[in-house]
C-alpha cells in the first residue's frame, strides 16, 4: 500500500458551496483546497453542521459546487452535466451511507448489482461474477436472495459496502458508515474498510466518532466550512480498538 507517493486522485481548488434559502445565503464550505492520492484512507471529522457531509456530497458529485474546481483523476468534473456526473459516480465512486440506503424491493444480490446494471461495458455474466465476488468479500454470499428487511443493520451495511466496491471504483466515500450500528457491527464494518484499504482502495470517510477516525491514515478536520487541520494519523492511535 502506498499513499503520498501515489498519483493524485482528487484535487479540490478554492471550492465553495453556498446554499440559498429564502434569499439567505449559507456558506456551507469555503476555500476548500484538498489533495487526495490514490490508496489513501482519509477521515473527515468535525462537529455537526460543520460541512463535512456537504464536502462528501461534492466529492461524490451528488451536488454541484458553487465555486472552485474539482479534478478527479486529472479530469475537471466541476461543471459536468447531470448525466456525465451520473456516469462518473457510477464508474469511479462507491458510496456507503449511514442509513445503508438499500432498496427494500430488491434482494441483496439485486442491490449490489444495481450500479452495475447502469454500465454498458459489463455483460450479464460479468455482473453476476462481480456481485458474487463483492458479496463474498463482505461475507454476505449466503444471503444473496434475502431482502434488506430480513437483515440486521450490520448485515445491511455490509451489503452496502459490497455495492460500493462491486464496480471497482476509484474512491469509496463513506458517510458515517457506523452511525446506525451497534459497537460490534460498527467494528466489523470498520474492519472491512481497513481490509479494503489494505487491498489498495482509496477511502474517504466522514465521521464524528474519534475511534472511527483513528482507523484512517489521515484526518481532515473541518470547522465552520473550512479545513482547520489536515494531518497523518500515527499508527498507535490507529491501533486503538473500538
Amino acid at each position, binding site marked *: 500500500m502506498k499513499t503520498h507517493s501515489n498519483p493524485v486522485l482528487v484535487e479540490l481548488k478554492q471550492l465553495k458551496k453556498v446554499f440559498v434559502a429564502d434569499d439567505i445565503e449559507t456558506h456551507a464550505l469555503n476555500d476548500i483546497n484538498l489533495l487526495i492520492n490514490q490508496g489513501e484512507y482519509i477521515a473527515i471529522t468535525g462537529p455537526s453542521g460543520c460541512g463535512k457531509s456537504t464536502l462528501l456530497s461534492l466529492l461524490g458529485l451528488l451536488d454541484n459546487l458553487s465555486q472552485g474546481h474539482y479534478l478527479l483523476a486529472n479530469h475537471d468534473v466541476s461543471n459536468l452535466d447531470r448525466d456525465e456526473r451520473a456516469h462518473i*459516480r457510477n*464508474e469511479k465512486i462507491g458510496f456507503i451511507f449511514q*442509513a445503508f440506503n438499500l*432498496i*427494500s424491493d430488491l434482494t441483496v444480490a439485486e442491490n449490489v448489482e444495481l450500479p452495475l446494471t447502469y454500465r454498458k461495458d459489463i455483460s450479464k455474466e460479468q455482473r453476476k461474477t462481480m456481485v458474487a465476488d463483492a458479496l463474498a468479500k463482505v461475507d454476505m454470499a449466503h444471503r444473496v436472495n434475502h431482502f434488506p428487511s430480513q437483515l440486521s443493520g450490520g448485515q445491511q451495511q455490509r451489503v452496502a459496502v459490497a455495492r460500493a466496491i462491486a464496480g471497482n471504483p476509484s474512491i469509496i466515500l463513506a458517510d458515517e458508515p457506523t452511525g*446506525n450500528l451497534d459497537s460490534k457491527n460498527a467494528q466489523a464494518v470498520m474492519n472491512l474498510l481497513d481490509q479494503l484499504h489494505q487491498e489498495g482502495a482509496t477511502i474517504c470517510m466522514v465521521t464524528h466518532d474519534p475511534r472511527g477516525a483513528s482507523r484512517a491514515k489521515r484526518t481532515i478536520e473541518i470547522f465552520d466550512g473550512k479545513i482547520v487541520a489536515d494531518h497523518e494519523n500515527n499508527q498507535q492511535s490507529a491501533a486503538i480498538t473500538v
Partner: protein
Amino acid sequence: MSLAIELKYTARMLLKKPMFTALTILIVSIGLGLTLYAYSILNNLVFKPMTMNGDTPLVAIEAKYNYNHQYRMQADPFHLLQLDQQLGLFTDVAYYYEGTTIAGGAKSTNSKLQQAKKYNATYTSWNIFEIAGVQPILGRGFAPEDFYDGAESVFVLSYEIWQRDFNSDAKIVGQTVSLDAMPSRVIGVMPEGFSFPQYAQIWQPLGPDYLNPIEATRNSAFGIARLKPDATFAQVEAGVASFNTQIEPELMKDFRWRLSDNGEYLIAKPYKHASIVQYYTIFVALFVVVFLILALACINVSNLLLARVNERLKEVAIRVALGIPRKRLILQMLWESVFICCTGGLFALLFAAYGLEVSNEILNANFTVENKKPFWWDLSLEPSAIVLLIVSVVLMIAITGLLPAIRSLSNDFNAVIRDGTRGALSKKAAKAGRVLVISEILLSCVVLVIATILLVTGYSAGTADYGVDTDKRLTAQVQLSPEKYPVRYDTEFEYQDRINRSDMYYKLKETLEAMPSIEAVSFMSQLPGRGEGTSYFEIEGRAAQVWNENPYSNNELVAHDSWRAIGMEIIQGRAFDYRDREDGALSIMINQTIAKQFFPENDAIGQRVRRVNARGASDDWYTIVGVVSDTFHGSTMRSSSASYNSYHSMDNIGPWRLYVALHYQGNEAAIKQALMDAVNTVDPDLGIYHIQNYDDLINQPMLLVLSVSKIFLLCGVIAAFLAASGIYAMAANSITQRTQEIGIRRALGSPDNDIIRLFMNQAIKQLAIGLAIGVCLSLLLVSTMTNTLVISNTSYVLSLICVPLLITAMVLLATFIPAKKVIKMEPSDALHHD
C-alpha cells in the same frame, strides 16, 4: 375542550393547504352530486315503483314488446280478464289503449277549438281513476253506465287542457265538445298534473265489447293492475308464465298473430319499466357508470388523504411517541374527512338540484311538439335521495377517514422518528397504489368508452344521410275524423269510402301546391327517418324454405307524386298513378337497395312479391311497378330501422292518418300558417298536429337516448377529470415516497432517463392491465345495448382508439410530471428527503 382543540387543529390543517382542501371537496362534490343526480333520474324514470295514491305497486300487463318495430303490444282484454281471475293477485285491473282525438272544428262555439286540435286520448275502462286513487276536481269519473251500448259519449278533461282550451271554465261539466266530429259531453276535470296512465290529455270510455268479454276477440288493450298487499311481483311473473303455457294451444288455433315471432304472449313488468323496455339497458348502464364514478371519487379522496398522511407520518409518529391515544388520533384524522365530505355533500346537493332543474327543462323542450312526456318524468330530489346522500357521506367519511388513519397507525413510528425513510415504499403500500391506479384506469376507460360510443352513435344518427332533403321541409301529421270519413268495411261502399278519404289528402295537396311559396307536397304513412320495423316478403318463384329466411322490408303508404317534395326520385319503372287507384289494384314500388340485391339483372319491374310471416303467406301478390331512390326509415341508431323499403299507393286504402311534408321557400313560421290556412280551407275538422321541420322530426325519437348520451358524456368528462387527478395524485405520491430511492439510484450512477423510464415502464404495465380489462368490460356493457341500438362502426373505432390513447397520454403525463420534478432534485437532497 379537547374537541375544540381538535376542531381548531383540523381547521388549521385544512387552511394550511387550501388548494388541496378545495380539490378534495370538489372531488367529493362531483362524485356525490353525480350519484345523487343519476339516482334521482333513475328513481323517477325507472326504478321507483309506481303506486300513485295507493300503497302497493302498479304492474303493467301486456303482450311481449315488439323489438322489430319498437313498440309496446296490446293484449286481448279477454285474456287480461282471465289472467286476473286466475291469479287472484290484484286488487283491481284497468284496461286502456292510447290514441289521438281531434277536438273541435269550424262549428265549435269555443273559439280556441275552431281550428281542430289534437289531444292525446286514453280510451279506458271505467275504473282507471279508482286504480290510480285520484278523483276529478270537477264533476265525476267514469261509471259502468258510461260503457253500456248506446250510452251517451262522455269524456274527462285533464287540468291542463281545461285551463288552456277552456279558460278554466267552472261550468265546463255538462258542456258538449266535438270529438272526432261527434258530440261528446264533459263529465269531469282531473287534478293538475294528472295524465295517468302516461300522457293523457282526455279520457274516453272503451267500447262496450272491451269490458267483461266472454270469449277471445280481436280487441286489444293494455292492462294496469294494482298488486294486493300480500302479493309479490315474482308471483305475478310466475303466474303469467303459467297462464301463457295454458292458453297457447287456443292461441295457436285462432290467434296465432297475437304471439311474438318466438311464440311469447303476455308479460308483466313494473309499470315504469314497461314504458321504457327498449331503453332499460341504457338506464342500467347509466346506473353502473355512475356507481363507477362514485367509486372513482372515493378512491381519489382516499388517495389524496393517504398522500396527506404520508406527508404527515413524522408528525403522527411524534404524536404517538408523545402518548396520544389511538382513538383520539383516529378521530383527528376523521375530522378532516368529516369536514371535507360534509361540505362536499352540501355542494353535491346543490349540483344535483341544479342538474335536475336543467334536465327538466331539456325534457320539457324535447316533448313540446308531441306532448308525449310520461307524467312521472318530472325530476326532483326526493326524500330517498337525501337519505342516500346522508348514507353516502357517512360511508365516504368512513372510507376516506379510516383508511388514512389505519395507514398512519400501522407505521413503525420508532423507525420514522429515527430515520424518516428506508428507501422504497413498503411492498403493501406499493401494491395498493398499483391496484388503485389500475382501478382508476379501467373505470375511466369503461365510462369514457360507453359515453363516446353512445354520443358518436347519436351524433351519427342525427347527421346520417336518410336519402331525403330535409332543408326547407316542414312536416306534420294530418288526421281525418273516422266519424266524418267512415269506412264501411265489408260492404259495397268500402272502396268508395277509402277513395273519399284519399281524396281529402289530394285536395289538401292541391291547395297547398297552389300556394306560391310551396314547391311540392308529399304524403306518406311514415316519412323517411321515421317509421322503422320490417316485414318479410316472398319473391314469386323464389320462396325461402323457412318464412323468416325471405327478404324483408319496411312498408309505407304513399300518395301520388310524393317523391319530389322530399328529394326522392324514380330510378326505374313508373310512379303510382290512376292504375293503382282501382279497386283491388296491387302494385308496389321498391327502393334501389332491394332492386340491386334481389334483382341484380335489373329485372325488378313486373316481378311479384307477397307478404309472409309466421302465420303463413298472403294470397295477395303485389306487382313491382317502379324503383325509387334509397331512403332510411327510422333512426340509424335503432336496430328496428330499415334500409329496405317498399311503398304502396294509399289511394285504394284510404288511411285515416298520414304524415305530410312540404317543400317550401321563405320562412318556416309563414309556412306553418299557410298549412293551417290550407287545412281550414279544405276541411276545418281535419286534425293537423306535430308541426315541425324535417330535422326535428328525424331527431324526435332519439331525443331521450341523446339526452342520456349527454349525461354519459358529462359522466365521461367527470370520470376523465377524476381519473387524471387521481392518477396524478397517485403517481406523485408514489414517486415522492420514492424520492430517497431515486436519490440512491442516482447516487449509484443511474442516468435521469433511466429513472424516468423506470416509472414510465411501471405506468405502461398498469396501463396495459387497466385498459385491457376496461375495454373488455365496456364492450360487454355496450353489447347489452345492441338489442335496441345500432352502434355505428365509427363510434367503435373512435372510442376504442381515442379513449385508450387519451388515457395513455393522461397516465404517462401524470407519471412524467412528478418524476421529472423529483429528478430535478440533487441526489444529495433526494437522499436526505424527509
